[in-house]
C-alpha cells in the first residue's frame, strides 16, 4: 500500500474497505513519516476549518424570515379553518336536509295513503272476500287471533254488512270490512295508527281521490278509513260521524 492509498483509506474514501485494508493503511502510516506528518497537518487544518468564525444572519434577516413564516402559518391556519368551516357547513346542511326529509316522510300528507286505500277499494271484488257474513259478531270472531289488535265491526246505517278479509296497508296488517249500500261497495279499513303516515286527528277528515270519498279518523290507537263511491256527506251520515 502506497502513501496515497493509505491516506485515502484512512480518509474514508472507501467505506467498503475491509478491516484488513484499514490495518494495512495504519501499518503503512506507522512506518511512514511523511504520511504521519501529512495526517497530523490535515487534522490541524480540519480543526482550523471547524473553528472558523461563522458569519451569523443579521437580526433584520431573522425578523424578516420569521415574520414571513408567521404569515405563512397564519394563511395555512386560515385555510384549514375555512376547510373545517366548509366541512361543518356541509355536514349541517346534510343533517338539515336529512331531518327535513325524514319529517316530510313521516308527516307528509296522507294523500298517498288515500290513493292506496282507494286502489285497494277498487280492486275489491266480492269473490275476494275471505269471509262472508252479515253478522258483526261472526266477522269479529273470524278476525280474532289473526291480527295484533281487536277489530270491532260496526254497523253502517243504510248499508248491509257483506264480509271481510285481511289486507296490508303500507306493510301493516289491516282489517278490511265490506258493506254494500244499493249497488255501491263500502270498504272500511282498520289498522294501527302507530308508525303509519296517517293524520293524527281524531276528528274525521274527508278527502276525495279518483272520484271516491275517503273518510279517516283515529280512535284508541287505530286508524279507520272508509272508502266508497258514495258522496262524502252521505257517507259521514251513514257512519254517524256528522
Amino acid at each position, binding site marked *: 500500500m*502506497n*502513501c*496515497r492509498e493509505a*491516506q*485515502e483509506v484512512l*480518509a*474514508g*474514501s*472507501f*467505506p*467498503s474497505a475491509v478491516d484488513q485494508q484499514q490495518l494495512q493503511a495504519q501499518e503503512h502510516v506507522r512506518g511512514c513519516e*511523511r504520511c504521519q*506528518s*501529512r495526517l497530523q*497537518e*490535515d487534522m*490541524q*487544518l*480540519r480543526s*482550523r*476549518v*471547524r*473553528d*472558523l*468564525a*461563522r*458569519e*451569523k*444572519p443579521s437580526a433584520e*434577516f*431573522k*425578523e*424578516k*424570515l*420569521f*415574520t*414571513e*413564516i*408567521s404569515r*405563512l*402559518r*397564519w394563511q*395555512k*391556519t386560515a385555510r384549514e379553518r375555512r376547510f373545517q368551516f366548509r366541512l361543518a357547513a356541509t355536514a349541517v346542511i346534510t343533517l338539515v336536509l336529512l331531518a327535513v326529509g325524514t319529517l316530510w316522510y313521516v308527516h307528509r300528507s296522507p294523500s298517498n295513503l288515500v290513493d292506496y286505500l282507494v286502489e285497494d277499494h277498487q280492486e275489491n271484488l266480492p269473490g275476494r272476500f275471505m269471509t262472508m257474513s252479515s253478522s258483526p259478531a261472526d266477522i269479529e270472531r273470524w278476525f280474532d287471533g289473526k291480527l295484533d289488535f281487536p277489530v270491532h265491526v260496526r254497523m253502517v246505517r243504510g248499508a248491509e254488512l257483506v264480509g271481510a278479509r285481511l289486507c296490508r296497508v303500507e306493510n301493516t296488517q289491516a282489517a278490511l270490512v265490506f258493506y254494500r249500500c244499493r249497488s255501491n261497495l263500502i270498504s272500511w279499513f282498520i289498522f294501527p295508527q302507530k308508525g303509519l303516515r296517517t293524520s293524527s286527528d281524531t276528528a274525521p277528515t274527508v278527502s276525495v281521490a279518483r272520484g271516491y270519498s275517503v273518510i279517516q279518523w283515529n280512535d284508541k290507537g287505530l286508524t279507520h278509513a272508509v272508502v266508497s263511491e258514495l258522496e262524502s256527506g252521505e257517507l259521514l251520515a251513514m257512519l254517524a260521524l256528522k
Partner: protein
Amino acid sequence: MRSLFKNSKSRGSDSGDIYEELLLAHLEALYAFALRLTRNQHAAEDLVQEAALKALKAFGKLREKERFKSWIFQILRNIFLDQHSSRSAESLEDLQESDLIDGESLLVERLLNEEISDALDHLPGDYRVVLCLSDVEGFAQKEISEILGCPIGTVGSRLYRGRALLRRKLIRLRRKGSQEGKS
C-alpha cells in the same frame, strides 16, 4: 424574535411552533452553509428563506424530527442546485499526485483564518459543500450522502480530494506570500 414566536404560537399549530424552534436552533448553521454555497450575503439570505418556507410546508411529512437538520440542509442544497443547474458547473481542478502526497509542510499554525476561509470559498462547489458539511457542520459521511443524494464512497472521495485541494491552495498562498516578502 421570541415575541414573534409568541404571536405565531397564539394562532399557529403545535407543529408550526416545533418547526420554528428547530429552525431557530439551526438557522446559523443553515445560513453559514448557504453563505459557503453562494458566497454572497443576499443570495444566502434568499436561499435560506426559500428553504425555510419550503420546509415549513413539508414539515408535517418529516416523521423523524431529530433528522430536521440534515433534512433542511438537503432542501437548501436542492434549491441551490435547481437555481444553479443552468449555470455552468465549476470545473473541478485536476489534482496531481503530488498534491495528494507531497511532503511540503503547510505550517497550519501560521495560517490566518481569513486565508483558510478564502481558500475554502474558492474550492470547486462539490468539494466546498462536502468540506463544509463534514468539517464545519460535523455531519457524518452517511448524513452527507443523504443530503447530497450521492453514494457514501463519493462523499469520502470528495472529502479526501477537497482537503487536498484546500491544502494546495493554502500552500500556493504561502509560497506567494513568501515570494512577495523576499521581493
